[in-house]
């Protein structure tokens, strides 16, 4: 189904972009290992700027960019670029928050043991933040599902498109109900799954 395709692919790219951005945000914060106020403020500005644009506007606003990246502005391909642009900064923020919560003392202990910074990021920060990362990604995924509903506008298809075209435009209310029900189930299922996984990763009973 197109919804899963869109969500899956854009989530993948959003994480690839968002996670390092989150790491960078935490690392360059004043008082942290790689403290760099300029980079930190710049990143902050970029993320805040993108995050202040509603998806429906962003979708059209970056059409030239979309065209330049994937060569088209329509279909699943055309909708993935704006979805990633929309979701990556969101994920960056969620990851920043998750990583920020990792006890600084543990990071310091690893520094004191002569461990490389990149190993600390991976084996300490990201590892310890896994439960929060999973919860963050659950939230991001649900947001992403919502955003894909608008993908219909550029011919991306998906559940939202179905509900809008058949349910709203053609007055086939049943289609709308069914799709809405499906979306509810999907979101519920995802959240339960996310919570369970996070609990399993937590370990501090």
């Amino acid at each position, binding site marked *: 189904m197109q919804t899963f395709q869109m969500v899956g692919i854009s989530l993948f790219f959003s994480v690839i972009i968002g996670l390092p951005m989150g790491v960078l945000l935490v690392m360059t914060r004043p008082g942290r290992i790689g403290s760099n106020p300029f980079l930190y403020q710049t990143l902050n500005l970029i993320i805040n700027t993108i995050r202040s644009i509603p998806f429906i506007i962003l979708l059209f606003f970056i059409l030239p960019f979309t065209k330049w990246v994937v060569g088209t502005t329509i279909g699943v391909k055309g909708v993935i670029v704006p979805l990633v642009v929309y979701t990556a900064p969101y994920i960056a923020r969620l990851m920043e928050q998750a990583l920020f919560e990792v*006890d600084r*003392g*543990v990071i*310091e*202990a*690893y*520094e*004191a*043991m*002569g*461990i*490389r910074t990149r*190993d600390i990021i991976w*084996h*300490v920060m990201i*590892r*310890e933040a*896994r*439960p929060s990362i999973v919860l963050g990604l659950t939230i991001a995924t649900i947001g992403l599902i919502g955003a894909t509903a608008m993908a219909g506008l550029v011919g991306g298809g998906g559940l939202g498109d179905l509900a809008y075209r058949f349910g709203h435009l053609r007055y086939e209310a049943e289609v709308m109900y069914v799709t809405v029900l499906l979306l509810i189930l999907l979101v519920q299922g995802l959240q339960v799954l996310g919570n369970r996984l996070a609990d399993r*990763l*937590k*370990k*501090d*009973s």
Partner: protein
Amino acid sequence: MMIRLENVSKTFVTKMGRVDALKNVSLELKKGEIFGVIGYSGAGKSTLIRCINLLERPTSGRVVWNGVDLSTLSPRQLRETRRKIGMIFQGFHLLKTATVYENMAIPLKLSGVPKEKIRERVEKYLAVVGLEDKRDDYPGQLSGGQKQRVAIARALAHEPEVLLCDEATSALDPETTDAILELLLKINEEFGITMLLITHEMNVIQKVCDRVAVMEKGQIVESGPVLQIFTSPAHETTRRFVNSLFQIALPRSLSRRDDSGRLVTLFVPSSVGETFWTQISRRFDVLPRLLSGGILHLKGQTLGRWVVHFTGEEEEVNKALLFLQDQGVRIEGVMLHAERNRQIS
């Protein structure tokens, strides 16, 4: 000599202004000893210990490790040096999401220790701290003392030459504190690991340290062998720390008793022997009356501290006190009868 701090100063610039956390601190750590730094919170001891492995870079001064100035090392050389300087903390700082075994194995793996060796070392040092049966537990399932044991094992697994203890027992109850101190002593003796520990508890210094430095306002105000510092504390802060171990505040009724004689405090190291007590009353025409005091067990030594009231002819009392002094007893607070109402110490 393993570690030498030369005129180390550290100034933090905060929103509230400049804070001089360390002012010209010099210190030497000898191989195999346990060196304690004591001070009230805010004295700068945490900054001091963190300067040793350059978690905190000194604003000025040098940190010399086996003849090498640490600030001249490349990041890679610094990492290698840090592996020889273990560190444990008040807050343990273990990975919550990793088992005891993983908590020890992960840093070893990241330091490039080969796989077979990791297993061997983890098992060896888990046994040293007595937690073989907890290897698959998560830190959340352990008590504070057990967590600190894991942290100690994690530090030992790197086979360091020095162990830095940053308020390692401050979060633990007295009984667990004693057990951890015992463990540190055992490690010091068995593996010959040099230790620097900072604390605000005098009983930690008392139980494990060979030498001690007292810090106040970013400076070392007094330092020396533990027995010497305990017997004759020179600085006001040192005195307060030493006094914290003795409950010698005299009830008013005792110090006010209206008779002649002298009220003194005697510091009696173990070298003096136990018979001095009977000897003075035999040799001199005095009546010593013990009002308060106690014996401290230092590492391998004891120190008695007694508040004694002597009655007798003044000349005899003087002779008796001189005799005690010759035996190695330090006498303090020799007060005249008229001044006696003042608080001792």
